[in-house]
């Protein structure tokens, strides 16, 4: 049954409508927000970094698509002999954008491999640029305590929007910028492919975050959340670890910004508002249960579905409710947030603190193995960072040699 529907959706050459449309829409937004919410769970739920600047991490994805991927596609199309209008000056970049994108789209329609490689290139460059921006926002802020860190990150999210509004070559300023349709090669409804790819990326990032949280690194993060000073007092570089967490989460979050740029085929700074990309993910996290992967997943699914259903059915809802419905989902955000904090302060699924799955701690503690506890561990120092990887992998080799 599901296969038939999926096949039917994939092979249909007409636009999807009605309930199927809504399902695709929810799937798309769920894919996008599960990335942001899981990254937020990684940062706030586990490491205790109250990142109120998710929007800045997302907007980098949008800017990457408009400023780098679009330019790259234009350049490659120009080299391939496609005649497009001039686009190098700021003025041409904005005002020729619709025409140019139209020309390039028809060129892209016969090149599925090129389009997919562009998507992969965008994701790769987002990981790098997201990490760079994570490092940049960590520079002034990472040593601050929770409240001040929050304020600095909110400010940065707003600042990033102002950059986008005023610097034309990034995303076309207030007018925005059209993006080449990298799913032009697909004959059916492109939104379905886009939704499937987004869901796939969302689920992959969910599993990556879950694996990392179920490892000694996740335990170290929870320890930092509980007591920073103690972690520092046993020789762990807390500032460095927090910075790494922010960089990694930024890299992953940026992908969702790029995906929404591709989905709309249009990037404008106003699409990356603080309310949408920071407060909604926070609601998902707090509703589901901070620090709990399943909770975050559930909260994300609930809030996304509710929000999209309200937005799509506003005309219908207006007939039922007596008050103006225009801001109903924003009201809902506030009401839900207050209700959750009063009735279930730990979320729908509260955090359960468990040992790392896959290592049998009880057996290890109970078994009688003679360990020389007297010998202090000889090589001290960071197991984090690049040098740690080489040391661990190098150590493995030596053992194999013996």
């Amino acid at each position, binding site marked *: 049954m599901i296969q038939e529907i999926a096949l039917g959706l994939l092979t249909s050459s007409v636009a999807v409508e009605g309930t199927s449309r809504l399902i695709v829409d929810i799937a798309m937004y769920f894919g996008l927000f599960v990335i942001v919410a899981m990254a937020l769970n990684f940062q706030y739920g586990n490491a205790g970094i109250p990142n109120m600047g998710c929007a800045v991490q997302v907007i980098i994805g949008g800017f990457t698509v408009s400023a780098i991927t679009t330019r790259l596609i234009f350049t490659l199309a120009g080299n391939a002999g496609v005649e497009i209008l001039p686009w190098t000056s700021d003025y041409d970049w904005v005002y020729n954008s619709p025409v140019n994108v139209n020309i390039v789209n028809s060129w892209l329609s016969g090149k599925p491999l090129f389009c997919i490689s562009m998507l992969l290139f965008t994701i790769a460059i987002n990981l790098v640029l997201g990490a760079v921006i994570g490092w940049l926002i960590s520079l002034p802020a990472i040593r601050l305590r929770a409240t001040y860190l929050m304020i600095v990150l909110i400010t940065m999210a707003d600042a990033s929007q102002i950059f986008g509004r005023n610097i034309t070559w990034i995303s076309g300023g207030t007018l925005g910028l059209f993006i080449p349709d990298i799913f032009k090669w697909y004959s059916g409804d492109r939104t379905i492919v886009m939704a499937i790819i987004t869901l796939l990326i969302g689920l992959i990032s969910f599993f*990556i975050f879950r694996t990392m949280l179920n490892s*000694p690194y996740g335990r170290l993060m929870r320890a930092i959340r*509980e007591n920073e000073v103690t972690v*520092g*007092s046993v*020789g*762990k570089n807390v500032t460095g670890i927090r910075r790494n967490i922010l960089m990694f989460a930024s890299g992953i979050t940026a992908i969702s910004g790029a995906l929404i740029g591709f989905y709309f085929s249009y990037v404008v700074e106003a699409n990356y508002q603080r309310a949408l990309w920071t407060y909604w993910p926070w609601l998902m996290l707090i509703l589901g249960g901070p620090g709990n992967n399943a909770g975050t997943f559930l909260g994300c699914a609930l809030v996304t579905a509710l929000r999209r259903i309200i937005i799509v059915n506003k005309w219908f809802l207006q007939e039922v409710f007596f008050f103006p419905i225009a801001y109903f989902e924003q009201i809902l955000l506030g009401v839900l947030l207050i209700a959750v904090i009063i009735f279930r302060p730990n979320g729908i699924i509260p955090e359960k603190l468990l040992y790392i799955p896959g290592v049998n701690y009880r057996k290890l503690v109970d078994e009688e193995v003679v360990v020389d*506890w007297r010998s202090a561990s000889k090589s001290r120092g960071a197991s984090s960072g690049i040098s740690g990887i080489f040391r661990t992998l190098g150590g493995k080799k030596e053992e194999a040699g013996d």
Partner: protein
Amino acid sequence: MSEVLKIDNVYKYFGKFAANDGVSFSLKEGGIYLLVGPNGCGKSTLVNCISGIYVPEEGHVYYREADITSEDMYKIARRGLVRTFQIASPFLSLTTLENMLVALPENAGENIALSMFKPTWVDSEINAVRRASELLKVLGLRHVWNKPANTLSGGELKLLEIGRALMSGAETILLDEPVGSIDPVLCHQIFSHVLRLRDEIGITFLVIEHRLEVAAQYADHVFAMDRGKLVTEGTAEEVFEDERVIKAYLGE
């Protein structure tokens, strides 16, 4: 016995108030040193200066002949100079075992990149658990290994502080009030652990303690501070018979 820790003329001011007013002393390897003095005489400030929480305004701190005066706390801890806290500060929602495991310096799974690939860190995690559970056995905490730290008693938390320092591979431990608000029986147990660790591994201890009747009998050497200055030093008998120390503790 070589010199491990040398404090050279350390000054630390809070505003105009000198919490440490030119303190100098040195610790030799494998000793148990006791630092006494009335409340507010600058003992904790001194430990904070040594362990890198504060940076002294003047003077230097040397650990094994390396200048660690303005180093970050975690770098000092990696050298093997680890402190515990006056108010036990464990990771409250983690279990006793996990509290110990976090302190291990070399754990491959604590690398952000390797943590994604489980086979790379399972071995080091298993070794870490074995070492931690052995240490818990030595400290007599094994029966509470599975309890969250917020359910432990005050005495168990103090032992956990020592265990965490040991787990991080400490060679010199600064114990800040290890038996404050602990019953007399457990006091002697904690100090017998200290003695055992000194004798078996050769760990150097600097103990800050107010309960002189317990601490004095275990200490090799006693430093007495008053109003930010080192008043006198020597064996326990010498120091506690010194008039200046009695005056500082009991008043005129």
